[in-house]
Structure formats: C-alpha cells, structure tokens
C-alpha cells in the first residue's frame, strides 16, 4: 500500500491538483476564481504529461553532443540515457492553447464587468433577470 502511494506520487499530485481546480470551477461563484480554477486544472494535466517522460537514474536532456564529428555506429542512441522529449513538446503546444483560453476567458470577463459592473455570478444573473 505504501509502495503504491509513494511509487506513483506524481499521479497522486496531478489528481489532487486537478480536483482542486475542478472544485474551484464548479463551486466558486466569482468568475475570476473560476478562471484560476481552470488554470490549476490545465496545469495539472501539463504536470501529468511532463512527469510521464521522466526516467530514473542519471538521464539527461536528449541532445546529441558532437553528433557531426566523425562517422559510424558510435552515434547509436541509447534511449535509456535520455528523457522522452515528446511530452514536453506536446505541452509547449498545450501551454499556448491554455494561454489563449485564459486570454479569451479574461476578455469575456471584462465584457461582463462592463455590462453588469460585477463579477459575482449570482449578481449577474439577478441583473439579467431584472432586465
């Protein structure tokens, strides 16, 4: 049991973070708090991806040194020496997407604030109902 918890600690952390974000998105009434929750939620997924590429035991970044000198088979790559670069690359794209989402969400918040002068969801709904 202890092994199960410690051995997979990166997954537990991402699940915990994701649930914090999820709670904030669902339960908070303030729109900015919802946006913060959304960001925590997305960051949790980034951490999940990045943590899956880690290998234990002195692995390094996947950069081949002196790759252009000499020829022959000694350039064969031992993948166990390098962390998997692909999740990082995917997450660079995902970060861009998330920044864009954040930007659109904040822009919509500004529109809401200009129209209703508040960012509390219940007050906005009240003022919509009053017409």
């Amino acid at each position: 049991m202890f092994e199960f918890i410690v051995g997979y600690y990166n997954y537990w952390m991402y699940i915990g973070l994701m649930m914090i974000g999820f709670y904030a998105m669902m339960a908070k009434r303030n729109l900015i708090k919802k946006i913060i929750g959304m960001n925590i939620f997305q960051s949790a997924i980034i951490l999940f991806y990045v943590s899956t590429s880690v290998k234990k035991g002195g692995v390094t970044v996947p950069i081949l040194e002196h790759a252009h000198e000499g020829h022959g088979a000694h350039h064969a790559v031992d993948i166990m020496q390098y962390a998997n670069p692909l999740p990082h690359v995917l997450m660079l794209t995902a970060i861009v997407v998330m920044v864009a989402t954040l930007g659109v969400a904040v822009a919509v918040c500004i529109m809401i604030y200009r129209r209703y002068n508040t960012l509390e969801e219940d007050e906005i709904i009240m003022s919509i109902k009053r017409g």
Partner: protein
Amino acid sequence: MIAQIPILIIVIPLISSLFCPLIGLWRRGLSYFWAVFSLSLCALASINTLLTVIDSGTIHYRLGGWAPPFGIEYVVDHLNAMMLVIVSVISLMVAVYSKRSVEQELPEKAVYFYTVFLLQVTGFLGIVITGDLFNLYVFLEIGSLAGYALIAIGEDGAPLATFRYIVMGTIGACFYLLGVGYIYISTGSLNMADVQQLLPQLYDSKVILTAIAFLLAGLAVKMALFPVHVWLPDAYTKAPSATSALIAPLMTKISLYVMIRILFTVFQPHLSIELLPVTDIMVWAGFVAILAGGIMALAQTDFKRMLCYVVVAEVGYIVGGVGLANTIAIKGAVLHILNDAVMTVGLFTVAGIIMYKTKSHDISDFHGLFKKMPFTMFAFMVGALSIIGVPPTCGFFSKWYLIQGAVIANHWAFLIALLLSSLISVVLFFRVIEIGYVFQASHGGHAHSTGQAATIDEAPLSMLIPTIAIALGIILIGVYNQAVLSNIVAFAVPQL
C-alpha cells in the same frame, strides 16, 4: 498541385483569416467578399477531395514528408471526406448568408467577425481531416476558442453564457487531452492508425479503460450529450444569428464525428462493442437525450432556444444509433450526421432571417409570417418536416435506418424514443406553424411587434438564396439518399 489539395483545405481558410483584418483595414466591405471567396475555394477543394476518395480510396497526406508514426499525417477516408464537404459547404452558405445580418447586428465588428469566422472553419476542418490524436486536440481548441469569441459578441446575456461555455468546454477539451495522454503513455504513439495497430495487446489494461472513459466524457461535453448539454441552449440562443447558424449545426456534429473515429478507428470495434459496455451505455444515453431534449424543447417559447433543444435531441439520435452497434444503425447514424447538419443550418438560417426582420426570436412574434415572407417560411417548413421525419425530406431516411437498426438490435426502448421524438417534433413545429398562419394576434400582441408589423416583408436576396438552397438540399439529399449511402456512407461504416 493536385496532390497538395488535402493541406490546402486547411491552409486556405487559415491564411485568409490572417489577411482578413488587413483587407478590412483597406476597404471594410471587402472582408465579406474575401471570406466568401476563400470559403468557395475551400469548398471546391473539399468536393474535389471527396470525389478523389470515392474514385480511388483513402488519401494519406504526410505533412513535411515525415513518415506517419513520427510526423503528422492527414488521412481522408469516406467518413471524413463527407464531413469536409459538410463543413465547407455549410460554412460557405452561412458566410454568403451572413452579410446583412452581420451589418445589422454587429455593424462595427464585421471585419473581425469574418476573421474569427474563418478561424472557426479552420478549426472544424482541421479536426475532421487530421489523423493524429494530439493535432486533433489543437484544432479542437482553435475551433472552440473562435467559437467563444463569436458567441460572446451576441445580445444581452451572451458574455455570461460564453463564460459558462468556456468553463465547460475547457473541461471537455482537458478530459480529451488526458485521454490522449493515457493512450500515449501506454502505446508511445499519437498517430491514429499506428495506435490502432498497437492497442489490441493492451485491451485488458486499466490505463486503456481510463483513456476511453476520459475521451468519451470529454467529447460528450463538446457534443452536448444530455446531462452535460447545459452550456448549449444559452450560448447558441444568445449568439448572433450568423454565429448560431454556423456553430449550432457543425460543432456538435464534429464532436460526434470524433466520437465515431475514436470508437471505430482508434479503438477497434471489437473493443468498443464486445469487450466493454460502451455501446450499451451510449444507447441509453441517446434514449435519455432524445426524450429530455424533446420535452425541454416543448417548454420553450423562444424559437432559437427551442431549436437548441432539438439539437440536443438530435445528438441523442446519433449517439444512440452508434450505440446500437449494428451496420444499419451506424449507417443511419452517419447519414443522420449529414442530414442533421443540413436541417439544423436550414432552421437556424430561418431564425436569423426572422430575427433580421422582426428583431425577435420569440415564437409569439411570428404572427402572419407565412403571408409576409412565403419563401422563408417555405424553407422553415422543409426543415421542420425533415426534423419530424416526413419523406421525401432527408430526415425521414436516416430515421428509418435508425429504426431498422433498433429493431435488429431488439432495442425497443430506443425505438419508442425515436417514434415519440417524431411526435414531439410534430407538436413543436405545428405550434410555430399555427402562430405563423394566424395573421391578427388574438391577445393584442406586444407593442413593438404590432408597431413593426407593416414593415415586415420578404428577406433580402443575399439571405434568401442560401436559405432556399439549403431547403432544396434537404429535399435533394432525401431523394438521392441511396446514392449517398452506397457511395459514401457504406464505406464509412466499420465492418462488423
């Protein structure tokens, strides 16, 4: 040049959306023609692709010449060739249609509207054409972000509806991303065809179960399947008319396409149908969605909002049809994706015309519209009959195949839901037709509706022509449904 057509379908709207603001800066009115021009090119390219696929089978396009498991690959088979044509032709129709409605509703923002409009179409087309799971996520978010922007500029209450859509849509997209992550850590690949080859050894792994659960839950939010549909009615009702005509038919249908892709291409039908109870759950989800969507549509007094709940019910048709998991039902479901996209765009364009003329989308303001705008109401009648499922409109045929599939699968509850839904649609649309035929409002009407009654006449031609074309399309697809079935849909259905 011909070999590059698959990538041109994406590149044309993407590049033209970058140039759109520049052209708008030079001559504001030109941005509309620019959008229509690039979408016509895009539609031609996708029709050409469809014909090539019918002629010579699946097209594989390697981006930058990188071989598939490492590079991103665009794969066009019968299913997504059909989707490409649906998306590009419908968006072209809506672009032509949008001119007057955008001038009236968003007079200052027309240039930016068309910029984002083109980005939205890029997102939709990219989701459909790509053969890479992560690339699909990126396009999904391009489409969604453009959609948020297009909806937020709507009438009062639109920003709040958009905010809710952003929160829900982000959860959906993140679940999808998480599902892709689980597939990636267990197979090491993101290419759909490659994953399909690698997965069967892992079918008893719990990671794969988690992956399929996250993928389907995420897509359910994006396609507005019943319990998680709550973002849809508000967002699409309050969006500008041109936006709801573009997004309401396409966004849900494209998520349904992705669902079919995931179930039958990424995972093999064997897993989705036999090893897991995925399809059983889907039939019941469809059952609930059809009834709940229909009943909530009955409760609406707003025309656009009613259509939104009809969309929720139609999503139930397709999810349930795929869930029945026999060849005829899946054929019906795929055909219904086409039919429902055309019917929904037809009805939303009518709603936009009525909005343009009467400044309202409340059903009680529809008095006497049949007399004042006969052509528009003809298009409305065709769309309504198709939703109800009256031959020879296309809605009848896909419903017929779904019913046959339900009989073969011995799923009587779903059959009853299909028939009940037709009855509910009869009530829904005849209520509108009745109000439309009565000329003098018996209760006196609202002050503004009677005040404007004299000025309401037939819609301008730029709105009317696409609307009538869509209505004729509904009838033509119905008449030639056998050709669509045997040339396209028959190849899009998995071999069971």
